[in-house]
């Protein structure tokens, strides 16, 4: 059967094609739009996962072909997108379509655009590189006069938007706050909310506008602004106390039914709004009597008004109870709220019961007597089949003794414990509850029986609880003090950070115990290695020390979350029991002659409910007061440990990340800086790279120029002048102390030029910082001798701190790329054990050059570390990272990380061959790529093209025959690539051939890039990305896409686009939109 289906499906595309040719576009259209249906039906008809995979793979292949075919219409593309979304939803990778989703959003009509935007929002996440490509489109749509387009743009902005691009749209979004349509205002508010979430400081200046939104005449806009307020108040409630009155007024109006009926939900007025306001009030009134007094009335009214005719009323009521119990207490309100809870716990609906029990925990924290009225209900809940309910019950159980005696309850609990139907986790909870009840029980028969039974339980968790109980039971007086009859524990001071364990933790760690790992991490590891518990007999070694049981898990305080595979080793080292994780149990008497079971792990998998605060408290108290007792870790403790681990971060050793420590601030700073650099180079299209390469190639020109100087003559002297100018710059500056940035700006000042000054204006680069960085480096002192022989890049600082500054530069040697890192010791003391290491990179072969080991760097001197780098397989851009560490005065060692970008061009060298050799090679190569490129008239001349190719791509000009040119280069070590080009009117036909399959593509790409800088007239295609490409590379493409838009500064009004200035080729600018007032 499935075979038939499969065959039918295989035939489908063919059928569609037939239709298309037979009956024309109409039929094609119809068949196309029903393709999703075909796919869905095909899948439902299949029976096995394997068949599905096959079918989808086939579908994806078809889609891949369709989306990249040149004759695919946008309408078809829309259809393809829908199917791609579907395939992704089924769990298959459709990343090849991401770029097309962006294109669709950019180019499509309204409906297509809508699908494009949807696909983008589903495919990408906010830090996805491709998202940068959407910015332009969003900006355009935000300015559209079509409401639907503006809505779409705002919707996508509120869902995913790259943080670094917020400035590009912020003013536009702000404008929309004054829009006449409420839907636009509402979406603008939510977009700003999104901005607030991802980059709060960016929207700081518009807080006043949020207030305006809060007072908006439209309820929807006002309600949307509450999201922002809730967030801001959560972070700093004191700044918004003055708004309490407004929130109260709004809530009063809502409760009083003053809103339009549209906002009713099952005849309850605006429940979402009510809940939002109640939450805000709860935060504002916390521990603040004066503010709380403002809201007592409206809360009272809310409680009163809630007619329980629909679930949503319960939602409001629950929030109301929560608020009443969060703010400064008013006993009358507390009572009313507690009464309301009865409606929850008595409800037959399990959801309400659950929330009722949860609400009771609020009540108990304030005043346990108020919860007494619900005691019976709670006890009845014990028999409930849903464990989550039971857990909730047990948490508050023990404090609600009134009519029933302790014995009765314990008996009931005991009965429950012995029943088979409940999970061991629930059992553990029950024993915990029994523990709390025991002090109040008069006879302890059952308790003793329970202890007897469960101290030998197979379940470690149960056994542990039983032991706790046993020890407490043996010391009744202590237990009574610990678990007071008539109180909850809110007045006890709990050391939640477990600081009393610090000493122990440190000691254990120093003995090699592994740091604590959070549960999920352990679980993942467990899954990955299928580890089997292996239990060695318990040694006596740890029986004397009460704490020895805590070994590895106690190591939390030291950067636990970055610890690796530690559980194992840690346990091994203490040479004791190997239990998975934490739950271990032993008593004073040492080893428990029992076999273990794995149940503990299963119970662990369920999270501990937050509501059981009281129980936790008790356990914490036990832990604290009972240090001498042998206590092992329960789940609660584990949670505390997690908390502790977060609190203790920073107490760690030097090597761990120390948020407070000085050394670390530095490394943080550094990291941030290098990140900035990265993004900068990402955004700025490798401004430096380009400039650098143009510089270097200028020097190239100097020695190759005479070769075809004749060809250049007719181009006039302008360029030549420029190049010689640049070479002069290079010559003079690289050897004197002028920093890179100054050089670049020099170039910018020079006459309109083709290559050099390309994009310095684009991204407002923080020149001052770069300049200051560069200034610190003494260039002259650090360049190697070799530098003078070969072409080299400028010195760029890659990292620094107050002691050293590391700069690097590239020397393009004939046979390899030589990377030099010069380390400049700025301090007055010498650095010892300096060591620079380069991390192995996937695509590079890195060889350390001799003479690199320089253990001592004297004060205020520079040492160089050299590495030769070979590219192992072609790609456009790669990253080389490494670190340097050194010792200062024999004390501590410092480590600095850095990274450098390498581009394909770093590995391309001219290939000097004769015309005949060229001919032979040409015929022998199988891989070729052809492309016709349109040139503007001024650029169409052969010489300029030659020059560009030669400079940018480092091609060797083999021969020039008429209007054809032959060029050759090689990718180090020895992959040749040949280029044949022909200038034909305003067309430039490029033809690459190589023995390597990917190299021609990469070079063509580089070639197009060169062209993009040359010619402002030619629209630049959106590059299609391979998923494996680096961010920097994609960012380059991004800029070239931006290039295709026109510069508004020089053309249209309200400018906000990036563009190229047609008057001065090579000039680029981004003009951010100005606020329209």
């Amino acid at each position, binding site marked *: 059967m499935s075979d038939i289906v499969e065959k039918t499906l295989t035939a489908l595309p063919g059928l569609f094609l037939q239709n298309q040719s037979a009956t024309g576009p109409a039929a094609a259209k119809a068949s196309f*739009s*029903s393709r*999703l*249906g075909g796919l869905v*039906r095909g899948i*439902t008809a299949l029976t096995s996962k394997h068949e599905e995979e096959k079918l989808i793979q086939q579908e994806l292949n078809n889609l891949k072909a369709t989306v990249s075919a040149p004759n695919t219409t946008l309408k078809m593309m829309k259809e393809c997108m*829908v199917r791609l*979304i579907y395939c992704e*939803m089924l*769990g298959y990778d459709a990343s090849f379509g991401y770029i097309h989703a962006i294109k669709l959003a950019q180019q499509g009509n*309204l*409906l297509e655009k*809508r*699908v494009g935007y*949807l696909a983008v929002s*589903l495919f990408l*996440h*906010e*830090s996805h590189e491709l998202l940068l490509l959407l910015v332009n489109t969003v900006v355009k749509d935000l300015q559209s006069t079509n*409401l*639907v387009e503006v*809505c*779409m743009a705002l*919707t996508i902005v509120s*869902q995913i938007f790259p943080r670094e691009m917020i400035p590009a749209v912020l003013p536009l979004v702000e404008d929309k706050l004054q829009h006449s349509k409420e*839907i636009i205002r*509402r*979406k603008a508010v*939510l977009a700003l*909310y999104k901005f607030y979430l991802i980059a709060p400081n960016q929207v700081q200046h518009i807080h006043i506008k949020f207030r305006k939104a809060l007072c908006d005449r439209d*309820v*929807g806009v006002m*309600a*949307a602004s509450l*999201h922002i307020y809730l967030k801001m108040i959560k972070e700093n409630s004191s700044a918004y106390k003055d708004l309490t009155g407004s929130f109260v007024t709004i809530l009063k109006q809502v409760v009083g039914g003053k809103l*339009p009926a*549209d*906002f009713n*939900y099952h005849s309850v007025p*605006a*429940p*979402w*709004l009510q*809940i939002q306001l109640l*939450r805000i009030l709860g935060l504002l009134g916390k521990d603040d009597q004066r503010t709380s007094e403002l809201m007592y009335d409206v809360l009272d009214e809310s409680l009163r008004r809630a007619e329980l005719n629909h*679930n*949503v009323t319960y*939602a*409001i009521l629950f*929030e109301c109870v929560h608020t009443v119990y969060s703010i400064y207490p008013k006993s009358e309100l507390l009572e009313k709220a507690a009464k309301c809870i009865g409606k929850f716990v008595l409800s037959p*609906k*399990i*959801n*309400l019961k*659950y*929330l009722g029990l949860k609400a009771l925990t609020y009540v108990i924290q304030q005043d346990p007597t108020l919860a007494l009225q619900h005691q019976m209900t709670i006890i009845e809940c014990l028999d409930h*089949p*849903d464990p*989550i309910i039971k857990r909730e019950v047990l948490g508050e159980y023990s404090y609600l003794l009134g009519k029933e005696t302790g014995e009765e309850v314990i008996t009931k609990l005991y009965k429950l414990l012995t029943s088979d139907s409940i999970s061991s986790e629930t059992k553990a909870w029950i024993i915990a509850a029994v523990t709390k009840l025991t002090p109040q029980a008069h006879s302890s028969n059952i308790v003793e029986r329970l202890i007897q039974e469960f101290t030998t339980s197979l379940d470690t968790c149960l056994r542990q609880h039983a032991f706790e109980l046993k020890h407490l039971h043996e010391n009744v007086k202590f237990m009574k003090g610990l678990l007071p009859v008539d109180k909850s524990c809110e007045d006890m001071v709990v050391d939640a950070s477990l600081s009393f364990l610090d000493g122990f933790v440190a000691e254990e760690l120093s003995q090699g115990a592994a740091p604590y790992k959070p549960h999920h991490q352990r679980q993942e590891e467990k899954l990955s290695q299928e580890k089997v518990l292996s239990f060695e007999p318990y040694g006596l070694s740890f029986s004397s020390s009460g704490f020895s049981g805590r070994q590895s898990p106690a190591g939390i305080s030291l950067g636990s979350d970055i610890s690796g595979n530690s559980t194992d080793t840690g346990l091994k080292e203490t040479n004791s029991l190997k239990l998975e994780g934490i739950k271990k149990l032993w008593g004073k008497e040492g080893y428990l002659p029992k076999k273990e079971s794995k149940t503990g792990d299963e119970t662990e998998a369920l*999270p501990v409910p937050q509501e059981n605060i009281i129980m936790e408290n008790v356990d914490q108290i036990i832990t604290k007061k009972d240090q001498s007792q042998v206590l092992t870790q329960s789940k609660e403790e584990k949670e505390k440990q997690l908390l502790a681990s977060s609190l203790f971060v920073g107490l760690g050793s030097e090597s761990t990340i120390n948020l407070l420590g000085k050394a670390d601030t530095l490394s943080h700073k550094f990291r941030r800086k290098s990140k900035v650099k990265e993004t900068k180079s990402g955004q700025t299209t490798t401004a430096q790279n380009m400039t650098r390469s143009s510089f270097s190639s200028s020097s190239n020109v100097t020695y190759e120029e005479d070769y075809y100087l004749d060809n250049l003559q007719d181009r006039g002297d302008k360029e030549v002048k420029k190049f010689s100018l640049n070479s002069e710059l290079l010559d003079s500056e690289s050897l004197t102390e002028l920093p890179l940035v100054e050089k670049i700006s020099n170039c910018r000042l020079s006459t309109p030029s083709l290559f050099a000054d390309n994009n310095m204006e684009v991204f407002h680069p923080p020149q001052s910082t770069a300049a200051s960085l560069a200034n610190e480096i003494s260039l002259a002192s650090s360049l190697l001798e070799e530098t003078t022989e070969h072409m080299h890049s400028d010195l760029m600082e890659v990292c620094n701190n107050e002691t050293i500054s590391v700069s690097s530069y590239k020397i393009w040697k004939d046979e390899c790329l030589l990377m030099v890192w010069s380390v400049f010791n700025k301090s007055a003391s010498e650095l010892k054990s300096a060591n620079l290491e380069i991390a192995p990179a996937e695509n590079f072969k890195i060889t350390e050059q001799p003479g690199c080991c320089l253990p001592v760097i004297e004060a205020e001197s520079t040492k160089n570390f050299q590495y030769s780098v070979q590219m192992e397989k072609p790609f456009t851009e790669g990253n080389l990272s490494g670190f340097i560490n050194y010792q200062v005065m024999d004390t501590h060692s410092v480590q600095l990380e850095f990274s450098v970008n390498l581009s394909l061009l770093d590995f391309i060298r001219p290939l000097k061959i004769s015309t005949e050799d060229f001919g032979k090679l040409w015929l022998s190569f199988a891989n070729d790529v052809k492309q016709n490129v349109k040139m503007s008239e001024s650029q169409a001349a052969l010489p300029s093209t030659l020059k560009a190719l030669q400079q940018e791509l480092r091609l060797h000009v083999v021969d020039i025959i008429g209007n054809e040119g032959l060029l050759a280069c090689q990718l180090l070590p020895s992959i040749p690539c040949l280029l044949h080009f022909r200038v034909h009117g305003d067309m430039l036909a490029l033809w690459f051939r190589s023995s390597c399959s990917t190299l021609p593509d990469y070079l063509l790409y580089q070639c197009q890039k060169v062209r993009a800088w040359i010619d402002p007239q030619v629209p630049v295609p959106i590059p299609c990305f391979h998923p494996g490409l680096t961010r920097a590379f994609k960012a380059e493409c991004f800029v070239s896409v931006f290039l295709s838009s026109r510069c508004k500064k020089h053309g249209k009004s309200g400018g906000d686009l990036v563009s190229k200035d047609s008057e001065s080729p090579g000039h680029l600018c981004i003009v951010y939109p100005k606020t329209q007032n």
Partner: protein
Amino acid sequence: MQFMLLFSRQGKLRLQKWYVPLSDKEKKKITRELVQTVLARKPKMCSFLEWRDLKIVYKRYASLYFCCAIEDQDNELITLEIIHRYVELLDKYFGSVCELDIIFNFEKAYFILDEFLLGGEVQETSKKNVLKAIEQADLLQEKTEHVSARVSLGVRKRTRICAGVLTCIKM
């Protein structure tokens, strides 16, 4: 809200909306885990789950499960009502919606969701306004396309795959 998932009784994902940035791998893992957990729950059990450090609120409508992940301070009950409101919106838009409508027109279901929830927060609580916004955006849509798709794809299979109209199983 952190994310919303719609899946069928057979565990097939029908809609997914993530409001927090996660890797694809993580998403898949979460989806798998949650679908399993939720499907294993008995009908009488409560609609809330504690899962990792999130709360899961789910509700079953006929053959479809709607499942939302919310944060600790969020209100579970109102989340259930968010789900219900979304179903109401779908119902109104498609006219007694069934699982098939969502399968075959899932992009519409997404559009409706985006008008209702934005960035994980309730954007518009008025049913009328949400539908108005959708209609406005739909205005240019060839009505025929939508209808014909439904007729040609839906009707025949409607009875076979789907149990019929999505009905709310009352708590």
